[in-house]
């Protein structure tokens, strides 16, 4: 009997995806979990593995097409018995396709509740159970109904659920300034109309990619909600650099390339443990700071398609070499567009290293709903006065941007100072590992 495979719920309130590539042909016999399609969502480019083994009878989509959750992607014939079979619109409890596909539900979207709260399973494909007036309220408050944990009977989203989600996503002052209707690109609704540029010369209009839109929306969200404050510091990493150089070969023998970023991750995890308010999220609705007892650090990776921030889990618990190895593998997956949504969610703090591209420093924007972000620029040899004489030292400029609602300048200075100390004295870092 032929089976249809539909675009599963991708989580994070994502309702559609663009087909990037079809990796099978009609007539192919494929195994369960074999790569089937590549899709790009607002979040990432991901591979969708086959939920079942069988013969591909018909492919219903083509590259470039945008499909909604629940749309039929592929029809299988001669399905192997005993394999998991996708049902297009499973109920909340019966969700085999979600389990069989890599993009799971994320908990860190702005519209959901606190990331570490056990969120109720969001609704599956198909309409979200809610009355028309509740749906209207959600639109007016700019809340994605799919991301709202329901409390009503039979999984129904109530007005109160929507209001709670709205409060969680935006603190009071910003809420008033937000547009009533959730337009595809929220800031456009606030911005005054553009002049007709054609009057000054020819122009070309290019639609924003999914990724670009997401970045635009999230940066606007962060910049408009969080009062950013930035602290500058510099670390003398001459000794650390020497340490990296002397151990390069030894590490390479174990298949790992030692980089400054690996040390930055470990140093940040150690420093964050001493300053937990920077490894946190602010719940403005409840007036609580949510301290996270885990250290999942995001690293900004520049790709051809735009900025993506994969997350390395439990950096504090892993040896340096493991962190370095995971970082390299993750960065490669991201650049090849093979990262899963799991790779990209759950971060508690972000590091962005713009050194490779030069510059003397940058002021980053916080990766909402995190509290702080660290940017490092290129390390340069500088003339430093030591004990009365000028010596060449390798100096790394650091910029720590954090949420002033959560911490004050002195707190940020202390965190930066700890980071600098660990980077300047890799022996101290060793004691912490």
């Amino acid at each position, binding site marked *: 009997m032929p089976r*249809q495979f539909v675009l599963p719920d991708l989580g994070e309130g994502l309702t559609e995806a663009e087909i990037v590539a079809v990796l099978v042909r009609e007539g192919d016999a494929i195994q369960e979990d074999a790569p089937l399609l590549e899709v790009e969502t607002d979040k990432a480019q991901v591979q969708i593995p086959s939920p079942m083994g069988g013969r591909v009878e018909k492919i219903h989509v083509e590259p470039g097409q945008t499909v909604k959750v629940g749309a039929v992607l592929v029809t299988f014939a001669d399905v192997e018995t005993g394999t998991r079979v996708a049902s*297009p*619109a499973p109920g909340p409890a*019966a969700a085999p396709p979600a389990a069989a596909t890599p993009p799971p539900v994320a908990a860190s979207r702005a519209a959901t509740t606190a990331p570490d709260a056990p969120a109720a399973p969001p609704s599956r494909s198909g*309409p979200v159970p809610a*009355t028309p007036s509740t749906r*209207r309220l959600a639109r*007016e408050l700019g809340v994605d109904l799919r991301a709202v944990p329901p409390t009503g009977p039979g999984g129904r989203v109530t007005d109160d659920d929507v209001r709670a989600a709205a409060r969680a996503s935006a603190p009071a002052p910003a809420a008033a300034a937000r547009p009533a*209707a959730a337009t595809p690109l929220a800031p456009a609704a606030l911005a005054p109309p553009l002049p007709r540029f054609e009057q000054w010369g020819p122009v070309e209009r290019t639609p924003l990619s999914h990724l670009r839109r997401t970045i635009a929306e999230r940066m606007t969200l962060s910049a408009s909600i969080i009062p950013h404050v930035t602290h500058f510091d510099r670390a003398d990493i001459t000794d650390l650099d020497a340490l990296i150089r002397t151990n390069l070969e030894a590490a390479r023998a174990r298949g790992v390339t030692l980089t400054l970023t690996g040390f930055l991750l470990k140093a940040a995890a150690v420093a964050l443990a001493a300053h937990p308010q920077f490894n946190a999220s602010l719940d403005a609705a409840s007036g609580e700071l949510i301290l996270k007892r885990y250290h999942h650090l995001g690293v900004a990776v520049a790709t051809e398609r735009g900025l993506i921030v994969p997350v390395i889990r439990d950096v504090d618990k892993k040896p340096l070499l493991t962190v370095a190895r995971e970082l390299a593998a993750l960065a490669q997956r991201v650049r090849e567009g093979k990262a899963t949504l799991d790779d990209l969610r759950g971060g508690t703090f972000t590091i962005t290293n713009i050194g490779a591209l030069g510059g003397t420093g940058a002021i980053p924007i916080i990766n909402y709903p995190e509290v702080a972000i660290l940017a490092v620029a290129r390390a340069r040899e500088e003339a430093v006065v030591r004990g009365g004489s000028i010596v060449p030292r390798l100096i790394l400029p650091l910029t720590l941007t954090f949420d002033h609602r959560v911490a004050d300048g002195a707190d940020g200075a202390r965190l930066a100072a700890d980071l600098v100390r660990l980077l300047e004295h890799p022996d101290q870092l060793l004691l912490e590992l």
Partner: protein
Amino acid sequence: MVMGDLLREVDVVVVGGGPGGYSAAFRAAELGLDTVVVDASKRLGGACLFEGCIPSKALLHVAQVMHEVERARDIGVEYGEPKISIDALRAWKDDRVITKLARGLAGVAVRHGVEVIGGRAVFESSSALRVEGDTPQRIVFKHAIVATGSLPAVLPGLDSGTAGVMNSTGALELAEIPAELLVIGGGYVGLELGTVYAALGSRVTLVEMTDGLLPGVDRDLVQPLARRIDKLFAAVHLRSRVAAVRETAGRVEVQIEGQEARRFDRVLVAVGRRAQSTGLGLPSTRVQIDERGVIAIDERCRTADPRIYAVGDVTGEPMLAHRAMRQGRIAAEVIAGKASEFDNVAVPAVVFTDPEVAWCGLTEREAKEASRPVKVARFQWAASGRAATLARSDGLTKLIVDPESGRVLGVGVVGPGAGELIAEGALAVETAALAEDLAATIHAHPTLSETLMEAAQSLLLDTGKATSA
């Protein structure tokens, strides 16, 4: 622009005065937008009022009265043979029904300050259209709403100019009552109009391409109607196509595949409707149209052209007046900056035959095709007190319910009054009600509406859930 042409500037121009168009125009005016309607016939109502829903329902009412009279014999009341005065019937339909409703709509337009301009609208750009007709003019608009509806589809290979061949519009004019009528198409239009003509005395033959009447509808809902149609019509040919049609001596000779050629006095082609998007100058805009002439819109009724919206049949299936009306209001509200969206879960569909067939939301067939697990509760009207008192026990009410949550996903009804009963189903599906909610709501006794409650209660019995919880 030619000198001397009239030029108007408006907030909203609505092209087409059907249910989608007038709903959009009235809502836009309510929201304070300067709104005009351009309609080829210079009137509000569209195909629905003048050549669709309303006249067909008027005639079906006549068929209904005659069926009731016929059935009365079984319960000991006899009226004798009916006599039909077709001129009086036509006059009632045209003057007392259509004209009265049209006058009502015109009055509403005046009250809302919505002017109806007669003529054909042709877009010149994304911000201007010209009106061709008695009062040629150019309208510069901030927003346009295309609501040009649909036309009866033509059967490929059948010359629509053949005398004796008519579409639904022609059939509703009721020019005469043919002795022998062939209906091509077993969808709702063919069944409704076939029923009308059969009641008025025509011998009706029906040809349907697929293997059943009302293709796509759950079979258990169709069955009581199919039984009735078998009695009412002279013949029903399923899995059949018309091979050739030609005019011969004032009659129409028809060759049904696999059968001998036969003569009919009239042939009604009822094979669906096509979106009407040609001749509007849409290529001068950024509006996107597919190969079937359907205008692509999003859930806010926006086309690919940021200034132009589209609602109703011209945006594709389901081509139903009530969907168009909802879309019309949404388009107007979106233009006025409101957070409106066509997010409706249930668009009820009603076939106004006897018995009526109505459904909304998920059908059992759709659930099966999507391999979606559902629970189905059926309540046979044989067990309904009200149905017994109406001498109509041939009905069925069914609920399609999510097995996990108990949520009502779809409702289907067949029986007299199904078109009214489905309203409760639509409310249940749209508000994500649970079967338990239907079961615990008091329904007046004895009414047919109890069948919804009974179906819900039978389902809870299955799951062992107390209905009084």
